[in-house]
């Protein structure tokens, strides 16, 4: 095991805040960069949410004027459906769950002063900001923004004449390339930091689980994104210089894109999911005052699920026209992936057994994550089974399924983390009353938006149609679209409650103590918010595992990881 030598860190010295530009724009401090990622993710979430509002309005009341947006119709609808997906996955989920949580927590939880490469870190963020800007600009160019679906399947995406979108789609591809570069640099930084800069005494077996999850996510991303970058460049060349990698009339193969896309696409799902799962795994022990059940098992489940995620990609392609004999092997690997995730879910439930469960806000979000994620995981079996997928592929059942898995990660896991670490990040407590309102209204409206979409999908409604009333099979079920849309207004309104709480609490919230939740991990031994360099004179020394709650014979129900005098000061 290697540790950063304290003398080396001392030579670089703790960061000094110097002026507005160095503090807020060219910031290299990991905590400021984490806040930048969070703000960027939230801003893009507003954009992605706005698109979903226009989309759902169109689905409920097709071809009517959308208040605050205008007329949608089929052309704009395809733009909405494409960019909603792109923005939410690449410019909301990843910035918040990896960018923000990873940057904030990795140094603080492993006892480092910053990330291994602080300037590279700033570069990652600003590349992502550039990528976000390119996505937004793509709405303004002639011909409008990309409209070939978030998966961008060629030939539709390979020739401007097929969609009528020229520069918009090229910029969309470019934005992805920039985003991938940003997170590749970020991933290298995460891994280097976790491997080389852990505090004395912090072996891998004592790492908080979220650090394991962040590391696994970074590795998955590093290993899977290469083929898609290659694919994106090939597609760009098909569009710009007239190659034919994906165009059959020029000797190309459309299916190749799908393989490249989903070889990345499935691990990417876990890139988003794992950090959220990690946040929830941090929160369970704190609010049930128990160690997480089966730490080693959960680590292995994470690694096995990550490894399996590389050999399941063709389950997105059962009916794609690939050789049908390939389907069953991929169906088997896909359904097998339920085993490690079932293990994680069972371990989380077992962690509650004989606990002392306090339903505080972070815990409410974490518990809701578990319920929503279990639902989404179970509906996944319907799609992982090749014969059942013949019918369900491409229907709203898929839409419902992945919103239960992704929203459980991004919204429930994400808010669990934000509510839990907000005091550390901003030095103030989030308002409880608004928080309660936010949680309950989100939980109810989310389920009313998405659960009925399973039904309409089973009834045969296909994805990415702008007007369900064009289908005789679906028209009698149109009330489901109306209910789902009305509930979406509630879901959006609930998030406004959060935004108010988020900004008002930063200014007027109750000042946060160092360790408001009586938690054991290292970050809670720093002041809230932590100063530059995090640890003052000496790096922390770690004496035990991350979840020592209710240890028999101890004088209080938690024993901090950090040993020595500093640990005693961490008491609230």
């Amino acid at each position, binding site marked *: 095991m290697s540790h950063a030598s304290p003398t080396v860190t001392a030579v670089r010295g703790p960061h000094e805040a110097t002026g507005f530009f160095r503090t807020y724009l060219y910031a290299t401090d990991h905590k400021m960069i984490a806040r930048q990622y969070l703000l960027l993710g939230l801003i893009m979430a507003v954009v992605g949410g706005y698109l979903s509002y226009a989309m759902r309005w169109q689905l409920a009341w097709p071809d009517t004027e959308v208040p605050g947006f205008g007329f949608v119709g089929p052309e704009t609808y395809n733009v909405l459906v494409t960019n909603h997906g792109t923005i939410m996955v690449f410019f909301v989920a990843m910035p918040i769950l990896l960018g923000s949580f990873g940057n904030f927590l990795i140094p603080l939880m492993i006892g480092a002063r910053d990330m291994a490469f602080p300037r590279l870190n700033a570069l990652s963020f600003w590349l992502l900001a550039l990528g976000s800007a390119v996505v937004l600009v793509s709405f303004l160019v002639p011909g409008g923004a990309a409209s070939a679906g978030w998966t961008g399947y060629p030939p539709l995406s390979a020739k401007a004449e097929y969609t*009528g979108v020229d520069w918009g789609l090229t910029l969309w591809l470019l934005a992805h390339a920039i985003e991938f570069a940003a997170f590749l640099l970020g991933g290298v930084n995460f891994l280097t930091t976790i491997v080389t800069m852990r505090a004395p005494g912090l072996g891998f077996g004592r790492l908080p689980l979220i650090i394991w999850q962040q590391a696994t996510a970074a590795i998955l991303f590093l290993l899977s994104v290469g083929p898609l970058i290659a694919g994106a460049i090939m597609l760009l060349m098909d569009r710009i210089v007239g190659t034919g990698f994906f165009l059959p009339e020029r000797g190309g193969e459309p299916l190749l894109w799908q393989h490249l896309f989903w070889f990345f696409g499935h691990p990417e799902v876990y890139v988003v999911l794992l950090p959220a799962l990690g946040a929830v795994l941090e929160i369970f022990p704190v609010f049930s005052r128990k160690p997480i059940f089966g730490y080693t098992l959960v680590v292995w489940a994470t690694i096995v699920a990550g490894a399996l995620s590389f050999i399941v990609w063709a389950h997105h392609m059962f009916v794609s026209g690939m050789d049908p004999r390939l389907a069953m092997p991929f169906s088997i690997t896909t359904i097998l992936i339920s085993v490690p995730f079932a293990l994680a879910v069972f371990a989380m439930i077992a962690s509650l057994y004989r606990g002392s469960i306090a339903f505080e806000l972070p815990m409410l979000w974490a518990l809701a994550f578990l319920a929503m994620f279990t639902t989404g995981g179970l509906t996944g079996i319907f799609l992982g089974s090749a014969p059942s997928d013949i019918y369900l592929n491409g229907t709203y059942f898929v839409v419902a399924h992945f919103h239960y898995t992704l929203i459980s990660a991004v919204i429930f896991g994400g808010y669990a983390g934000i509510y839990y670490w907000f005091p550390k990040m901003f030095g103030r407590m989030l308002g409880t009353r608004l928080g309660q309102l936010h949680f309950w209204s989100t939980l109810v409206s989310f389920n009313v938006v998405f659960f009925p979409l399973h039904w309409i999908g089973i009834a045969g409604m296909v994805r990415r149609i702008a007007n369900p009333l064009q289908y005789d099979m679906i028209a009698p079920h149109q009330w489901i679209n109306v209910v789902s849309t009305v509930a979406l207004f509630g879901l959006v309104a609930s998030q406004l409650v959060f935004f108010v709480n988020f900004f008002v609490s930063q200014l007027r919230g109750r000042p946060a103590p160092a360790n408001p939740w009586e938690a054991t991990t290292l970050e809670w031994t720093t002041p809230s918010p932590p100063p530059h360099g995090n640890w003052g004179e000496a790096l922390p020394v770690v004496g035990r595992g991350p979840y020592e709650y209710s240890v028999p014979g101890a004088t209080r129900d938690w024993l901090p990881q950090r040993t020595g005098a500093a640990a005693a000061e961490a008491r609230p």
Partner: protein
Amino acid sequence: MFLSWLPENVSTFGRDIDGIIALIYYITLAWFIATMGTFAVFLVRYRRRAGRPAGYIKGDRWREVAWVLLPCLLVLVLDLWIDFKGARVWAKVKIESPASDVHIRVTGKQFNWVVTYPGPDGRFDTADDKTFLDEMHVPAGKPVRLTLEAKDVIHSFFLPNLRLKQDILPGRSIPAWLDAMKPGQYELPCAHLCGVGHSGMKATLIVHEATDWDAWVGEQWSGSARPGEKT
């Protein structure tokens, strides 16, 4: 909760697919009730109460770990059950195909289904071909062989009532088959985003009764030969 939302099935293999969906439904429903039930009981029973400390259970001994590993083993067994039952159905629908004397070529293009019958000579691209736009006729109770092609972008041939879906890649001919059991009219939407007219790209499948089918064929080719039969 789920199964009653399935539209009426009118194809032979549709029953098998519905059987798999039902199997998965009951298995996942049982898991949902078991996990969420346990979860709910724990939340109520182990809510924080003064004077009741939490237990210290790390789950690092086999006796404890068995509580999660045994259910995982059950998950694995049920997974394999779904896979093995499913493999047979998949092979039936997508790999094997029964002998058939009706052969139809369906071409997807932005934004229509072009349905071509080979005519009495049984060969496509000859003078006696007949082509229909957004309309497809098949006999009831007979296997029908399909050749699926796409002219421009990817389309997806979807017959919800027959539980058949197949994406179509431009540049390839993809075989498929169906056997409709019940006469009637059914919708045939495109299930893959194919451009601005994707929404509303659909055809009607008309399943004819046996006698009715012969009459229809007679009408089209003014002979008595069935399409696909050599004269």
